[in-house]
């Protein structure tokens, strides 16, 4: 038994290092001094941990203990706006996606009806569309409709990504749930109350994961945002960050803002992850 637990803890350690290390190696740059960044080979760890770059990207100067001052980043307005827009857009997209997808996935997973295969194929087609090929059409459509650089426009585009994708995942998930609503239907429940009072509580964990996924897709969407809202008042964090990649590379600020992009989804995931594992299905049929 002792041998098994040593193996287990070793495996956990390896898995954690695997998951964390690439993030650490990049984000450590936020704490390196400009001189350390230029070193070859690069150090494992910064000498001192100071949060100067975080002040910089949100528009404040910071005086390091070593005596020098790093100036506020020119991108700070974009970053702040990106955070606010990102939270706003992602929350709305998450809510709308769930409202649309949960009944849809339920219907596709649990009911037999005509044209079902064709409709499933339509969903698959929407998932398979590569964004690179719809970029120009979307752009020209948005110019005509005056939706360029608006948050509403970005929400609509993002929904075309999240809805089919999350639907596809949830359909598979709903199929695996025990078919108790059939029994409930015999007892005279209507379809709607089956969905609301039986399926929703049962599928809580799947819906939680779907919420995380919709939020992440929306929060991290880069390709469309770059073309449709970059540089406008509706820009999101990913596009704001790409400003650091341009002519004046500021690795420290870049790393700091990447950390900022990871924090909200990580918090969101932390609060929702327990739903995944609290699920212990009591199967009424078996």
């Amino acid at each position, binding site marked *: 038994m002792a041998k098994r637990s040593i193996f*287990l803890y070793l495996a956990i350690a390896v*898995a*954690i290092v695997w*998951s*964390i290390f*690439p*993030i650490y190696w*990049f984000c450590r*740059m936020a704490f390196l001094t400009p001189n350390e960044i230029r070193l*070859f*080979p*690069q150090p*494992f760890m910064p000498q001192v941990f100071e949060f100067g770059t975080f002040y910089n990207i949100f528009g404040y100067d910071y005086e390091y203990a070593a005596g020098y001052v790093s100036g506020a980043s020119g991108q700070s307005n974009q970053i702040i706006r990106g955070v606010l827009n990102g939270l706003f857009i992602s929350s709305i997209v998450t809510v709308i996606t769930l409202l649309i997808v949960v009944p*849809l996935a*339920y219907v*596709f997973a649990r*009911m037999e*009806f005509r044209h*079902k295969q064709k*409709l499933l194929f*339509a*969903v*698959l*087609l*929407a*998932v*398979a*569309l*590569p*964004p*690179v*090929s719809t*970029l120009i059409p979307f752009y*020209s*459509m948005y110019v005509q409709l005056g939706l360029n650089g608006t948050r509403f426009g970005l929400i*609509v585009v993002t929904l*075309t990504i999240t*809805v089919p994708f999350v639907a596809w995942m949830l359909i*598979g998930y709903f199929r695996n749930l025990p*078919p108790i609503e*059939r029994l409930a*239907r*015999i007892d005279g429940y209507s*379809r709607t109350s089956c969905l609301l009072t039986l399926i929703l509580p049962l599928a809580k*964990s799947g819906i939680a*994961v779907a919420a995380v996924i919709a939020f992440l897709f929306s929060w991290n969407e*880069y390709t469309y945002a770059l073309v449709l809202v970059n540089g406008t008042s509706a820009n999101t964090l*990913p596009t704001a*960050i790409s400003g650091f990649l341009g002519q004046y590379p500021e690795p420290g600020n870049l790393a700091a803002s*990447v950390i900022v*992009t*990871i924090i909200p989804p*990580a918090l969101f*995931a*932390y609060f929702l992850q*327990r739903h*995944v594992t609290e699920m*212990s299905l009591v199967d009424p*049929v*078996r």
Partner: protein
Amino acid sequence: MAVGSAGQAIQASTPSRKPRREMSDTRFAFLIGLPVLVFLMLVVAYPLGYAIYMSLHQIVFFGGYRANFVGLKNFIDVWSDKSFINAIWITLRFTVESVVLTMILGLCLASIMNQRIRMAGLVRTLLFLPWCVSSYAAGLMFGQLVRGQTGILTTISFTFGGTQGVDLMGRATVVEVLAVANAWLMAPLVAFFLLANMKTIPKRLYDLAAIDRLTAWETFRYVTLPPLQFTLFVFASITTVLSMKMFDMILIMTGGGPGTASATLTYQIYKRSFKDLNLGYGAAMSFYLLFFILGATFLIYLVWGRRVSR
């Protein structure tokens, strides 16, 4: 599956068309599904139609915008384009490697998270972190991690007395590096769905396996794995689609390089459309990509999905 057949038996025993005033399943399904599908059709159909229009034209910007109808010329020309053939090959390599790695990693992570451990919530959150990283940020991170100038391998090599940097971004390994980064990014998602599925396996079966003195591997192979088949199939398809569509990570990490060593189809489409401004040609390429994606998903369904989805 026992559950499914029991459910079907129940359904079969009730009349499928109810004499009461309730609407039929089909109508209920359409009522819920139709608005969504109409929205998707409108928002997806227009860009799709526009892309078809572009692919049938030669679009010229210099000397005034012109769109000359050229029929299927773009679709045919593509096949005599070396970079297109090269891109198909690289996309195939990238996708197969990504999917296989993601599935294996997902199973490993899920098995670890399925153990009873202390601070399980923290461990789960840490293992979930890569999925919180966006694909462009993952591109930045892995670029930093493996490039000779800034990479971890260089630092390690110097720590142990080496004198040269280690660079994995060379021609030979750049696709593998991209696939590893992609698998790193997608594995937590797969792992979480597998974990949710593992939790539904009755504990009784593990007790039986223990009585039969199955080894850990046999238990995994014959008790844990079979119920996961359907989820594995679904995610094999999903990761295939995501890998073939992957663009921003590749753009940021390698920019298709060195040379064209990591120029996947998505990258070639981007290059043709946005750099060479050859919109019709790029659109034609993107339809081939769409066909390949659909083809790959169907192939997976034919060889695997049909067996496990019943």
